[in-house]
């Protein structure tokens, strides 16, 4: 049993790390989810024992299974769920303000922003990435984006 679970943990963690190294933020989120699950399994296996259910009153000398790991795993699942939700909302905000979730696009955009700043030109929001596609929509899409960000902030509360 331990071997099977260990293999599962290994496969999950490996797949998670592979996804974590991708360019696309959505894939990266998938990676963090897989890694979180491998950690949850790891916690389970750290207290894997055979026995009766640990409900009081216990029989004399009865072997009970470890209840603590389940409590820990439940907490860990809740936390990883919450953080994943937060991460996805953050990525949505990135998408709203940059129109891309590809990390290469985003770095290009920021480099251009830095260059603009060095030339003492005040940067305009969303000038970099949109240049390749729809420059016309730049000004129109600006205002709804701000609203989107604020709505999002309220949601994360």
């Amino acid at each position, binding site marked *: 049993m331990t071997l099977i679970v260990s293999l599962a943990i290994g496969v999950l963690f490996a797949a998670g790390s592979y996804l974590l190294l991708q360019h696309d*933020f959505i894939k990266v989120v998938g990676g963090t989810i897989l890694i*979180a699950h491998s*950690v949850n399994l790891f916690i389970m296996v750290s207290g894997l024992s055979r026995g009766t259910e640990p409900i009081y009153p216990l029989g004399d000398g009865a072997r009970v299974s470890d209840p603590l790991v389940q409590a*820990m795993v439940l907490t*860990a699942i809740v936390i990883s769920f919450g*953080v994943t939700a*937060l991460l996805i909302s953050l990525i949505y905000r990135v998408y709203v303000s940059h129109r891309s979730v590809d990390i290469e696009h985003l770095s290009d955009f920021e480099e251009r922003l830095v260059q603009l700043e060095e030339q003492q030109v005040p940067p305009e929001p969303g000038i970099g990435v949109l240049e390749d596609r729809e420059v016309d929509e730049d000004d129109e899409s600006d205002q709804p984006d701000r609203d989107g960000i604020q709505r999002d902030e309220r949601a*994360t509360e």
Partner: protein
Amino acid sequence: MLIVLGLGILWFSGVCAAILDGRRRWVGFASVAAILAAIAALVALGMNVRDEGPQTMTAGGWPSGVGIGLTADMLGVTFALLSLGVLLAALTFEVFNGVRSQSFPALVLLLGAGLTGVFLTADAFNFYVFFEIAMISSYILTGYGDEGRQLRSATIFVIVNLLGSAFFLMGIAALYHQTGRLDMAGIAARVALLNPTSVILSAVLIFTAFGIKLGIFPFHFWLPAVYTGTRPAVAAILSGAVANIGTYGLLRWGGGMLPDELHTAAPMFFALGVISILYGSLQALSRRSVAEVVAYSSIGQVGFILVALAIGGPAGFAAAVLFAIVNAVNKTLLFLSENLRGWLTGFAFAVGAFSVAGVPPAGGFLGKAGLFQVAAQDDNWIVIALVVVGSVLSFIYMFQIYQRRFWTPEVAESANAVASPVSVRAVVVVLAIITLLIGFWPEPVLWVSEQAGQSFATTRP
């Protein structure tokens, strides 16, 4: 009871502030008052710890060993007070400056609750839970600002720290498997009986997690982008309060629970510390904007903490605590004053800059002197040389940005165009005075760090 009081105030007021609109001034001032109340409770707790030794409390009236415990010793109380002080300064600054998001005060309060919990808990898994409460607040705070510019770095910050949390959780689970305990004292007692090689992997996982929090050399890549992209108050919170988790974690877990493993890892910590100092300083030298220089200098300053940890022993730990205190004050002062304009802000920034450089009247001198003293006692010439080189480099880059900011005519002219509000400048000036005070009257800080360094001297072989 006092242990829960500070934590409870922050938690309760954080929840209350979350349903209110934080952009209103009175909500902001109420949050400041809540942090002040929590600081008062922690000071009272610290007095008790000083007079009667470490205080413990078990939640729910369970027998100790069954219930989840809270323990306050000098180390924990020091770090809790330090972090809350930074939060207080940053929140007051932002309230005077005008809060831009309705969740900001609530997030700062909840971050304070998480940090206080981390520093006062006696349970390994509860440490993780509080750690996540603090981190989640800081994830959202990182995205606080007007421009979309910091969002990419905020996302990277979250992803990197998620990986760190996963490592940390695995380390806890592995330690639980090996020791069968979750209370820190129990883990420490049983780890001492185990073969050190069997614990080394858990130790590596835990140390890596705290290294990511600190932003030391191989885990630093998110740091400059985040610190330069966010608003000054958030950068001050991240570098002054959240980074304390890393220092405290390495001290508590390394010094208190895994002393043999910390000893084994000392050469690696030393090497990483040296690389961080040199890398941070050289990068800071080559940068032009103030925010970037300060951000890279924090990588370098954290390197000094690692070097102090690698020296180890009560003296080394005391030097690490001392450096952490001074560094938190410096960074808060620098980040808050970097964009201010008007009378006396130049003074405040100069105090911060010279403090980082370690020029005597400012508090930063003390941290470097502490490290210097420890190294001189050991005849450790490499550390002495390193402290000198690091200080010289930090003096150069700090003087460079000071020169660029205040001595360049056109910058100075545009700087005088819009003066910042007096109240905002007052916060920064008070911080600068505190920094000077630490330098002129160092006894309290020295005493506190010495006591904190001895918190677990008994558990060391």
